[in-house]
């Protein structure tokens, strides 16, 4: 999902930076508030953020004959919402643009919007819809993670299509072409990522159910139901 340095004109870079900045600023503020209220939230942030570090460093081969990264943002989105996920993603993306030439400082805003804002927000909406239904906790984690991953790449495709509309067919036809490159490659990765993070969530539930209930991530009944299954 990394748009390369120089891949967007400075006007687009500015637009995406302006969209990303309020989320980042609110995210830092929100993070301070949560950590001040409950120090036990810090280890949970460590685990969910740690998975973003691990998964976004893995370039996995896919059915289209090219490689892509999972994003790993699902757990953090469920636990802390999209704003804090934006902050963690920004740290990872900054590291990658400074040291790995993946992305770059000018396009960092655009990459934060796709991986740190739109993907997690889409996942968060789905989580809020599923939280108060009878859908099982693990299925929720799977669906949210896979959706956040897919939406990240759909957003990248849209960002590139906006910047490079095709001569014939314009925006829509180049959006479809970019989707063909990014989204199709991503489908198997999103499914595997969803299953892996659902398994990780099982271990979090086994070891530390009280933090999930205290931060109101899932209700006590749902956590109890999930515990009775393991």
């Amino acid at each position, binding site marked *: *999902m990394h*748009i*390369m*340095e*120089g*891949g967007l004109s*400075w006007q687009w*870079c500015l637009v995406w930076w302006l969209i990303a900045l309020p989320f980042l600023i609110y995210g830092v503020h929100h993070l301070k508030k949560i950590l001040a209220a409950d120090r036990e939230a810090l*280890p*949970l942030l*460590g*685990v969910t953020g*740690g*998975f*973003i*570090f*691990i998964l*976004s*460093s*893995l*370039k996995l*081969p*896919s*059915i289209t*004959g*090219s*490689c*892509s990264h999972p994003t790993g943002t699902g757990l953090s989105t469920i636990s802390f919402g999209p704003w804090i996920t934006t902050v963690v993603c920004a740290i*990872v993306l900054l590291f*990658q*643009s*400074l*040291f*790995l*030439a993946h992305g*770059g*400082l*000018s396009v960092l805003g655009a990459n934060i919007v796709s991986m740190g804002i739109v993907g997690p927000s889409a996942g968060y909406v789905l989580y809020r819809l599923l939280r108060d239904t009878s859908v099982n906790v*693990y299925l929720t984690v799977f669906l949210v993670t896979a959706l956040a991953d897919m939406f990240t790449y759909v957003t990248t495709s849209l960002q*590139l299509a906006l910047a*490079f*509309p*095709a001569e014939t067919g314009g925006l829509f036809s*180049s959006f479809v*072409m*970019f989707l063909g*490159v*990014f989204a199709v*490659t*991503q489908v*198997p990765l999103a*499914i*595997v990522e969803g*299953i*892996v993070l659902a*398994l990780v969530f099982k271990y979090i539930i086994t*070891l*530390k159910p009280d933090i999930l209930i205290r931060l109101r991530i899932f209700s006590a009944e749902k956590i109890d139901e999930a515990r009775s*299954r*393991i």
Partner: protein
Amino acid sequence: MGFRYTLEILTIVAIIAFCAIFLYTSSTMSDAEFAGSDNVGSELIMRLSGNTEGSFQPLIPQWEPPSGEIESCLFALQAAVGGILVGGVFGYWIGQKKKA
């Protein structure tokens, strides 16, 4: 109790299936280079914009890892940081649980 290891089994099956699909595509698609989709995307940008690779200048000068080895080293470093965080916290939680 029937559900006890369902997720573990699902995860293993998914990873094995993923590897199988990889082996299948890499043996049947002769032109599959397994380049990053970022690069494939960049090629598409060049085609759509009609520019060549040389005409893309970084807006902000950027350091690039001088070789693939150094790049993979830095990627491994990133994964290691994540691994330390995850392992450390799970260890901390197990310790807390034992103490309680």
